[in-house]
C-alpha cells in the first residue's frame, strides 16, 4: 500500500518515548506496523533514548538484584498470564483486521448514526482516550463536528476525503479543536477506520444537538 498521510512527528516521538495514552498508542502503533518510513523515524527516537540511558546517572540496584534475576532465570515455569485460547466471543464489525488488532478485546458493536457503526476496543489502562473501530457506509457524510480533545484516525479499508485530502488504507488523519472537518466516505465501498479519541465530539446544528446524548463515541 502507498501511504500518503502520516502522523505528525511529535506524536511519533511521544510514541517512541512511551508517553502516549494507550488508545493513541494503539493507533500510531498499528500505522507503524504498516509504514516503513514512520518505523525508521521511531527507531531514530529510540536511538536517542538509548543514548539517554547510557548517559543516565546510575542508581544503585538492590543488593540481591542480580541474584533475584538469576533465580528467575533458573526457575522457568511462571511466565506471564497465558493468552486466552478462546475464540473471540464478540462478533467483529470486520474479521479482516490487521493481525495485531485481532489480539485486542472488543466490546459490543453499536449503531451510532445512520450508516455509521462503531465497536469499542477494551483498553483497561486507557486514561484520557478511548479506541474503537468505526465503520461507515459508502457515501456517508459525517455530521459537522469539532473536538474538545484529539482524534487519531487510521484507515484500514475503503477511503474518505475532506479538506485535508484523500485518505486510503494506511493513511493517518489527525484532528483536534482547531480542525473542523466534514469527511465524506468514498462511494465504492464502506470505510473501516481505527480511531482513538480523547475529549468529546461537539456536534453542530440542531440535529447534532438532539443526537448527542445518544451518540457516545
Amino acid at each position, binding site marked *: 500500500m502507498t501511504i500518503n498521510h502520516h502522523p505528525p512527528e511529535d506524536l511519533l516521538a511521544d510514541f517512541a518515548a512511551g508517553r502516549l495514552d494507550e488508545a493513541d498508542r494503539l493507533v500510531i502503533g498499528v500505522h507503524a506496523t504498516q509504514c516503513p518510513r514512520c518505523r525508521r523515524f521511531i527507531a531514530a527516537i529510540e536511538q536517542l533514548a538509548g543514548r539517554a540511558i547510557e548517559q543516565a546517572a546510575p542508581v544503585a540496584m538492590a543488593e540481591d538484584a542480580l541474584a533475584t534475576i538469576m533465580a528467575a532465570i533458573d526457575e522457568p515455569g511462571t511466565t506471564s498470564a497465558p493468552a486466552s485460547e478462546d475464540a473471540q*466471543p*464478540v462478533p467483529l464489525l470486520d474479521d479482516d483486521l490487521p493481525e495485531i488488532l485481532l489480539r485486542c478485546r472488543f466490546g459490543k458493536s453499536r449503531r451510532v448514526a445512520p450508516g455509521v457503526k462503531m465497536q469499542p476496543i477494551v483498553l483497561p489502562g486507557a486514561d484520557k482516550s478511548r479506541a474503537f473501530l468505526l465503520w461507515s457506509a459508502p457515501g456517508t457524510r459525517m455530521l459537522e463536528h469539532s473536538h474538545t480533545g484529539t482524534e487519531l484516525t487510521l484507515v484500514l479499508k475503503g477511503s474518505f476525503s475532506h479538506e485535508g485530502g484523500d485518505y486510503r488504507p494506511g493513511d493517518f488523519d489527525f484532528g483536534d479543536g482547531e480542525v473542523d472537518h466534514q469527511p465524506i466516505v468514498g462511494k465504492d465501498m464502506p470505510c473501516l477506520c481505527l480511531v482513538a479519541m480523547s475529549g468529546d465530539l461537539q456536534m453542530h446544528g440542531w440535529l447534532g444537538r438532539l443526537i448527542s446524548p445518544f451518540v457516545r463515541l
Partner: protein
Amino acid sequence: MSYGRSTARDPMIERLCDLLARVGRGDQRAFAELFAATRNKLRKTARPIAPTNADLDDLLQDAYLKIWKHAAHFDPGRSSPITWMCAIMRHTAIDAARLKQVPTADFDEALSVPDVSASEDAFDYDLAQPIAARAIQRLPDERRQLLSRAYIEGESRMMLAQRFGVPVGTIKTWLRRTLETVRRDCVEGATRRAMVQSG
C-alpha cells in the same frame, strides 16, 4: 420524591438482609426477589472490570451462584448486604479478567513488528536501525540534547525555555525543525541505501 439513591437506605438494607437470610434457607422465591433488586447494582460493579456484555452476563451468573451458595454465611452484623454482594461480584470479575486477553507487554512488543502484508518495500527490512542511528548521530549536539530533554525526559517547553534563555515559541520551533531534520534523514537515508543496493 427521588427514587432509590440516598433516601431509602435503611428499609432497603433490612429488606436485603431478610432476603439473604431466606435465601440461606433455600428459599428460591427470595432469591428471585434478591436478584431483581440487586442485579443492576452488581452489573455496574462488574462493568469497569469486565466491560463486554457477553462477559458481564456470564459473570453475573457466576456471582449470583456464589451468593446462593454462601447466603447462609452472610453476617448482617459485620457488613451491609449490598457491600457483601458487590465484593463477591468484584472478585468474580477480577478472576475472570485475569485469564482473558488484554494488552500486556507482549502486545506492546507485537506492535513493533512490521506487518509484512502491508509493505512491499524490499529495502526496508532490517535497515531501519542503521539509518535511524545515523540520523541521530548527524544532529548537532545541542539539538540532540534538546530533543532528548523534551521527548525522552519529558521536560516541559517552559522549563526548556528557561534553561536556554529563549521564548517558548523558539523552543517549539527548534524542536519542530529538529524532528523534521531527523525525518528527512530517515527518508533520504533509505533512498541512498536503496540506490546503493540496486547498484
